[in-house]
C-alpha cells in the first residue's frame, strides 16, 4: 500500500513539478470560469451550478487525456519503466499508483473551481442547492475516473505521449458520438444499449442533484474494466 501511495505521490508531484500540470489547471479554470459567467440565476429559485457541470464534464474529454498520456508512455520512452518494474511492486500496484496519482491531480485541478459555488452563494438572493453542487462534483470526478482509465489503457500501449493523447481523445469522442447522436439514429433495439454508454448523460444526472446508484456503479465499473485491460496490457508488454 505504501508503495502504491509512493507512486501516486510521485505522479501527482511530477504534474506540478513540470509546466503541464499548471497549464492544464490554468486552462481548465479559465474555461470553466467562462462557463460559470454564463450561469443563469432565476429569482426565487434555488441557485444551482447545473449548467456549469455539463460543459465542465465535456472539457474533461480533452483534459483527462492530457493528464493520462504521460502515465506509462513517458516511462517507456525515458527507460524509467525498468527501475520501476524491477522494484518490489506488482504491475497492478504500479498501475493503481499511477492511476491514483492522475485522479488526485484531477481533484486538485477542480479545487479552484470551488470558488464558483462560493461566489454563487454570495451573489444569489435565494439559497444555494449545496446538495446538487456536491453531487455535481462527485459526477465530475466519476467521469474523470472513466476518462483517465481509458487514457491509462492507451498509455500502456505506446511510447509516444502525443499518440497516447490523440488515441484517447479519439476513443472518447467516438464513444460520445456513438452513445449520443449515434444512439438517436441507431435501430430501435440498439439505441438503448448505445445510450447506456453515454457518460455525459450520467454526469447530467449528478449535475441535477440526482445521485443514482446505477449511474455511479456504471461509471465505476467502466473505470474498473478499462483498468483491468490496462493491467493486462502492462503484463503483456514486456521490457520493450
Amino acid at each position: 500500500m505504501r508503495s502504491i501511495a509512493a507512486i501516486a505521490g510521485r505522479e501527482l508531484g511530477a504534474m506540478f513539478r513540470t509546466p503541464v500540470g499548471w497549464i492544464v489547471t490554468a486552462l481548465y479554470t479559465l474555461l470553466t470560469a467562462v462557463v460559470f459567467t454564463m450561469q443563469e440565476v432565476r429569482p426565487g429559485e434555488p441557485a444551482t451550478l447545473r449548467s456549469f457541470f455539463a460543459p465542465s464534464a465535456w472539457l474533461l474529454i480533452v483534459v483527462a487525456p492530457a493528464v493520462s498520456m504521460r502515465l506509462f508512455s513517458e516511462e517507456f520512452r525515458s527507460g524509467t519503466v525498468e527501475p520501476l518494474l524491477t522494484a518490489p511492486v506488482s504491475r497492478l500496484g504500479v498501475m493503481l499508483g499511477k492511476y491514483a496519482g492522475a485522479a488526485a491531480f484531477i481533484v486538485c485541478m477542480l479545487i479552484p473551481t470551488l470558488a464558483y459555488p462560493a461566489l454563487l452563494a454570495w451573489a444569489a438572493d435565494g439559497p444555494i442547492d449545496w446538495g446538487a453542487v456536491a453531487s455535481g462534483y462527485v459526477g465530475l470526478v466519476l467521469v474523470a475516473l472513466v476518462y483517465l482509465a481509458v487514457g491509462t489503457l492507451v498509455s500502456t500501449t505506446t511510447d509516444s505521449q502525443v499518440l497516447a493523447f490523440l488515441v484517447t481523445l479519439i476513443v472518447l469522442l467516438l464513444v460520445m458520438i456513438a452513445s449520443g447522436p449515434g444512439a438517436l439514429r441507431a435501430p430501435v433495439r440498439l439505441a438503448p444499449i448505445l445510450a447506456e454508454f453515454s457518460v455525459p448523460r450520467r454526469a447530467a444526472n449528478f449535475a441535477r442533484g440526482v445521485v443514482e446508484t446505477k449511474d455511479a456503479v456504471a461509471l465505476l465499473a467502466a473505470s474498473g474494466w478499462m483498468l483491468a485491460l490496462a493491467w493486462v496490457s502492462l503484463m503483456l508488454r514486456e521490457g520493450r
Partner: protein
Amino acid sequence: MIHVHEASKSFGRTRAVRNMSFELQPGLITGLLGPNGAGKTTTIRMIAGFLTPDEGRITVAGHDVQADSLSVRRQLGYLPESAPLYPEMTPRDYLDYRARLFNLGRTDRRQAVDRAIDRCRLADMAHKRIGVLSKGYRQRVGLASALLHDPPVLILDEPTNGLDPSQIRSTRDLIRELAQDRTVLLCTHIIPEVERTCARVLVIAAGRLVADDTPERLAGGNANRFEMVCQGPADPALRESIARYLPGIETRLADDERPGWVRVEASGDGVEGEAMHRAAADAGRGVRLLAPVRSSLEERVVRLIDSAETCVDAGSEAEKAAGGSA
C-alpha cells in the same frame, strides 16, 4: 546466490540469449563481458525480473524469478544501463521515492537515503534537479538507488558509464567494498574494467556463454605485461639486472629486428615499467621503447567473440539452406 539454468530469450525471430547457464556465489564480483548486442542486458534483465525467459529457470537467493518475483526484487539492487531517472526530481526526492517503493519506514528511509548519498558522494547535488546534473552524477544517483535497501545481490549495467577517471576509480573501490559480503554482477563491454574489478568473467557472444573463468586464466596467464627494447645483447649482465629489479617475474629476452638491440618482455603481478627501466639503466643500456603490452585478456576475449559469431553465422546460413531446400 544467482542461479541461471538454461535460460533462453527471443525477440521475434532474434534469439537474444540461448541456453545460458551459470551460478554466482556471494563475496565475488563477476563481470559479464561481451560486445554490444551479445545478450548481456537481456540476461541481466531476466535476472532482475524485467524480462521473462522463454525457457529455463532463474533463481536469486533461492527465489524463483518468475514464481516469486517480488521476493527476488527485494533481494536485488539493480542499476539499469544509462541509469534512467526522473529529471524533474532531486536526487534526495528520488532516493526517498525509491525507498518508499522498497517499503522502508520513515526512520529507515531517512537513514538509507543519507547513507546512499554519502556512499555515492552526492551530498553537493542532493537538492538539485536531476535534469541539470552531469551524466556522471546521474549515474551515481542510479547507483545510490541500487544500494538504498542494502541488497545482498547487486546487478550493475555499465556502472562507470559517463564517469570521469577519478569517479571511475572511486566507483570501482565502492563496488569492491560492496562485494565483500554481496554477490555483484557487473555488466560491461570495457575489458580493463573487468581486469581491475572482477574475480570471475563470463564472456557472452551471440547470446551464448562462451567462457567462464578468472580474468588471469582466461587471458592465459597474468594480465600485466610490459615490453622494453634496449641496447646491447641479451647477455648475463642484463639478465642479472632484470632478475634483481623484477624478482620472481617471468621475463623473455629476444633479439630485436634492429641489430644491436634486445627485446625484453615481462609479465606477472607487480610488473612495473619503472623497474624495467632501472634494470636496463643499471646494466648500462639505453632504452628505445618501454610500453605496456595490450591486455592479453582483450586478445583472448576478442578471439572468443569472433569465433562464437562465426559459428552463429555459419549456423544461420545452414538453417537458411536447410529451409530453402525444404
